[in-house]
């Protein structure tokens, strides 16, 4: 067959000098630049584009826009594979590969089309009942079959090679939609000098005007408007850009398909860009969508919306059929009928109305169309393509051959965006349609979305609304173009949806989700009568097209079943996004390592040079272990732990939260915040403290030092630093504004290195020349600010996390690198070993120090063994609610140690604890929070929270990991595995 044999020799806005080759299901075709995939397929006589979701019925191209329910294709290949793209929105690029979906083995012969014959077993509510009903066990049985049979395209599993961006922009007036009303509104605002953004989801601006012939007055008007707008420096026109959501504060989310119309994105160009547009005023000129009509087999390929046929004819110069039946219930189809007839097609119009307006039908009749009043299609014939229809009217019932049926069921305003911010749309009986309602003052509507369908009226309204949005009187409106289209109002008494109960064939309401009239009736019989129930029960309107072509017809059916009018029946809720948005576009550049900001300590480069393996701790990147110490984390961390226990190690502790607390009431403030007391802490000493939340659970712990009479230096855990800082500020500003205290975060201002192990003092004496580390000068829990002989400032804390003699050495962040090198060099003679987070964790587990794994927001002081900190002689945050009776219950899970009976058996963090040999059922009597290999005891050990806590010491219980199918016998022991007296601190 000749290529593009349905392409007309003249007309349209396609570029005849630029042919484009593409593949559909492996066959090669030719189209033109300016085509969509849909128009190029139609130019080649291809209507059949896919199989339906549930019943695998053959389906064709229905529309020319985002409302397309059927022609969803998988585009491109390999890592750029993208499923479920409407052929009507995909611009043709050279070499484009498209595949039909949901068919096997091929489109024209689909083995699962048997579902259609067996459809009485797949009625509405099949999924609903299978999931929710008493037979939901059936799901287990049917699932694999259903998953294979139902479903649209398949995504790729390889990473997307393309980039996505996000951009913020600000404007005075944002116009969504670039049809007649949108153009007029944008011009009015632009001439007033405002910063204007105009969004158009198609590649060409013009909306409904694009359905007018390319040599028409409307086309001249469209071009003149666009020329003026694009020449204005204060106007930004974004094509291929869909506003998908309206949010508070005048924010519009939009996605720009920057490179989707190209084979691959050019260098330095993203595939898509998400816009966060902040607008003072918003004009919604989002237009309207034509509805189909009901009759038997109304889903056959070759049955399309009348407006779409007109768009293919006048914009793409494609004649979608040669022998055409137009079924309409309103005036808007007659422009299509006249123009299709004038283009050489045989056109027969079946109008459901008995009395027709001569002036409306005259152009079609003059072009040669035959027109039958009070005539409707009962059903369509044909399988892979419509071949004819059975009509019935005043002169009885007869068949008519055809290769295209145009349906025109009236127009539904595109209220989706408006309804996201306003109230539910209200029904206007004179239009037979829902229109936006209850919009806030900064949002206005113009044109078809507001029910203003006639072009001249839409232009006048757009001009007025655009001027109001600009805050000026825009003056006399620009002249409107003349158009052939008649407004598709439904008369007040016209509730016609076609023929819902034909003699033959299934009648589809929602094509994408295979919902038929019978399904709606079944839902009604079974009591699912509210619109929201109907939707969930039948899945009507829940496809990627969100029921743009189906919702109103379904409402009309339900309203007539319930004997109510449509306003009473109501409509469903509208939520973003307006059309599907790729997750990549929403993520933008925030993927992989850019997912969120990463914080590096001042010694980060040093760790890299020393071949550290990193781990994220909160927002921080911390050394996990050093690869020079072993080939994996276990080997390396055991080496590092042993160094600390037997000799000396150093670890980067800069991530600790640090808060400077100053003021005459600083001690009083700390007394209120911490469980333990601070007034008696001498200057030059530090103390371990724990703080609670108002509800009595432990918030955080850390060491706080007294540097001066009114000056304290607080440290917090790495993870809770920001939370604690905000909490202190909250208390000072809302609860105790009378306290004269300032808190300042100094986390980033200080680098910190912990030096731990029996040789730590000797190393530091060698490293910090001129600093006196004598135990008398710096006893355990001593603090001192000092300066090395060469001027390096240090803050020394004699505190230990590992249980060995240890020091925390702080220095201003800029000296962190120098301090590390100095300690490392001085320690070389002693064999100092840098250690990472894994070894640090292992050392503290051996000592039973709780960290975030144990202080998890659900544990009390008593749960983690710190109950004695509350001496009961002062008031502090959380001290009332911590005494709630339930928190003292005997079965509270409390901190214990676990040792496996077989010391070489590793325990699993997150594992459950069950009584010995008990059935593994429920959550057990405890759970494991932290695990390590104990270098000193030569056994695996764990910390756990177990009911009854240390009362159970000596008990044998089971550590269970159902995920790994493991069960180990363990003994409950003290959580302090080594040196319970703390004698090593002085060693």
């Amino acid at each position: 067959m000749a290529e593009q044999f349905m392409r007309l020799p003249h007309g349209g806005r396609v570029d005849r000098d630029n042919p484009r080759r593409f593949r559909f299901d492996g066959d090669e075709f030719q189209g033109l630049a300016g085509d969509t995939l849909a128009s190029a397929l139609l130019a080649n006589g291809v209507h059949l584009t896919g199989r339906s979701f549930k019943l695998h019925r053959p389906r064709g191209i229905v529309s020319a826009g985002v409302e397309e329910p059927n022609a969803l294709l998988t585009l491109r290949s390999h890592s750029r594979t993208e499923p479920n793209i409407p052929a009507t929105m995909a611009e043709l690029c050279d070499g484009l590969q498209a595949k039909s979906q949901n068919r096997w083995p091929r489109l024209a012969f689909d083995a699962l089309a048997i579902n259609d014959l067996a459809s009485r077993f797949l009625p509405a509510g099949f999924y609903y009942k299978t999931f929710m009903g008493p037979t939901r066990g059936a799901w287990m049985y049917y699932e694999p079959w259903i998953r294979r049979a139902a479903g649209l395209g398949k995504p790729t599993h390889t990473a997307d090679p393309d980039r996505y961006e996000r951009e913020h922009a600000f404007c005075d007036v944002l116009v969504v939609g670039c049809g007649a009303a949108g153009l007029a509104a944008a011009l009015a605002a632009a001439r007033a000098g405002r910063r204007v953004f105009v969004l158009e989801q198609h590649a060409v601006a013009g909306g409904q005007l694009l359905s007018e012939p390319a040599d028409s007055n409307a086309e001249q008007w469209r071009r003149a408007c666009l020329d003026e707008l694009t020449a204005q420096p204060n106007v930004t026109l974004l094509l291929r850009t869909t506003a998908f959501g309206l949010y508070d504060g005048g924010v519009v989310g939009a996605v720009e398909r920057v490179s989707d119309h190209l084979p691959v994105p050019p260098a330095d160009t993203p595939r898509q860009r998400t816009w966060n547009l902040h607008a003072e005023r918003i004009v919604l000129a989002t237009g309207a969508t034509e509805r189909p009509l009901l009759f038997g087999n109304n889903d056959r390929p070759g049955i399309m919306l009348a407006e779409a046929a007109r768009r293919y004819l006048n914009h793409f110069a494609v004649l979608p059929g040669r022998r055409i039946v137009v079924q309409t219930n309103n005036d808007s189809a007659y422009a299509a009928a006249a123009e299709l007839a004038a283009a050489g097609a045989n056109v027969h119009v079946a109008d459901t109305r008995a009395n027709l307006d001569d002036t409306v039908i005259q152009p079609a009749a003059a072009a040669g169309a035959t027109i039958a009043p009070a005539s409707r299609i009962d059903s369509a014939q044909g399988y892979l393509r419509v071949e004819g229809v059975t009509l019935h009217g005043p002169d009885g019932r007869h068949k008519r051959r055809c290769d295209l049926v145009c349906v025109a069921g009236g127009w539904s305003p595109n209220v989706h965006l408006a309804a996201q911010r306003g109230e539910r749309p209200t029904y206007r009986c004179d239009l037979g349609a829902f229109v936006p309602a209850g919009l806030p003052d900064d949002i206005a509507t113009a044109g078809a979305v507001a029910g203003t369908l006639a072009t001249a009226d839409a232009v006048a309204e757009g001009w007025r609304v655009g001027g109001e949005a600009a805050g000026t009187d825009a003056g006399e409106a620009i002249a409107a173009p003349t158009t052939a289209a008649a407004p598709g109002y439904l008369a007040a008494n016209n509730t016609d949806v076609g023929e819902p109960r034909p003699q033959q064939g299934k009648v589809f309401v929602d094509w994408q989700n295979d919902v038929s009239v019978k399904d709606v009736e079944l839902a009604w019989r079974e009591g699912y009568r509210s619109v929201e129930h109907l939707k969930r029960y039948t899945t009507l309107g829940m496809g990627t097209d969100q029921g743009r072509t189906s919702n109103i017809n379904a409402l009309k059916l339900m309203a007539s079943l319930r004997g109510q009018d449509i306003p009473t029946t109501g409509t469903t809720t509208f939520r973003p996004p307006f059309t599907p948005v790729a997750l990549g576009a929403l993520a933008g550049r925030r993927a992989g390592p850019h997912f969120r900001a990463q914080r590096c300590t001042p010694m980060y480069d040093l760790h890299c040079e020393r071949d550290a393996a990193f781990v994220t701790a909160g927002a921080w990147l911390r050394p996990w272990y050093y690869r020079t110490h072993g080939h994996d984390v276990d080997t390396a961390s055991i080496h590092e732990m042993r160094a600390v226990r037997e000799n000396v190690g150093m670890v980067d502790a800069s991530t600790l939260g640090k808060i400077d607390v100053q003021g005459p009431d600083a001690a009083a403030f700390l007394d209120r915040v911490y469980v333990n007391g601070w007034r008696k802490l001498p200057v030059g000493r530090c103390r371990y403290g724990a703080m609670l939340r108002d509800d009595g659970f432990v918030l955080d712990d850390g060491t706080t030092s007294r540097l001066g009479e009114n000056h304290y230096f607080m440290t917090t855990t790495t993870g809770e630093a920001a939370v604690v800082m905000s909490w202190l500020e909250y208390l000072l500003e809302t609860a105790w504004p009378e306290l004269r205290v300032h808190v300042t975060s100094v986390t980033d201002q200080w680098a910190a290195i912990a030096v731990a192990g029996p040789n730590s003092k000797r190393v530091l004496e060698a490293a910090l020349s001129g600093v006196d580390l004598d135990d008398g000068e710096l006893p355990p829990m001593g603090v001192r600010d000092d300066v090395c002989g060469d001027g390096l400032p240090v803050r020394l804390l004699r505190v230990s996390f590992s249980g060995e003699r240890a020091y925390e050495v702080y220095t201003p962040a800029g000296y962190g690198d120098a301090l590390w090198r100095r300690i490392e060099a001085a320690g070389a003679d002693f064999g100092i070993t840098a250690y990472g987070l894994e070894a640090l964790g292992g050392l503290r587990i051996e000592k039973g120090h709780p960290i975030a794994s144990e202080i998890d927001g659900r544990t009390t002081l008593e749960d983690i063994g710190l109950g004695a900190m509350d001496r009961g002689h002062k008031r502090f945050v959380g001290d009332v609610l911590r005494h709630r009776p339930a928190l003292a219950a005997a079965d509270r899970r409390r901190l214990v140690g676990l040792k496996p009976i077989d010391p070489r058996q590793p325990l699993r963090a997150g594992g459950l604890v069950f009584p010995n040999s008990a059935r593994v059922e429920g959550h057990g009597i405890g759970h494991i929070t932290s695990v390590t290999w104990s270098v000193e005891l030569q056994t695996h050990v764990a910390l756990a929270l177990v009911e009854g806590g240390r009362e159970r010491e000596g008990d044998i219980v089971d550590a269970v990991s159902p995920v790994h199918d493991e069960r180990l016998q363990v003994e409950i022991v003290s959580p302090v595995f080594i040196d319970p007296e703390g004698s090593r601190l002085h060693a």
Partner: protein
Amino acid sequence: MLRINCPFCGLRDHHEFTYGGDATVERPALSERSMEAWYQYVFVRTNPAGWMQEYWQHTGGCRAWLVVERNTRTHEIGATHLARDRITEVDRG
């Protein structure tokens, strides 16, 4: 996409702020020993439909704690005050 008028920094996007809870509940004094009073303060909320007062902290800005009036039905933001000022007013009243 709310915007909050920080008394120090001006009109800023709400992403710069951190929500801090209901500002209409009155915190018991530290000396209050009644578990019921603390229970009411920590756990009991009225959840009004309409205008309410909330704590927000300008964490991405000046770090001030604010009392922000917000309409829970429309998301409209009303007056904003420094939490410190408001408490002073209450004390005076």
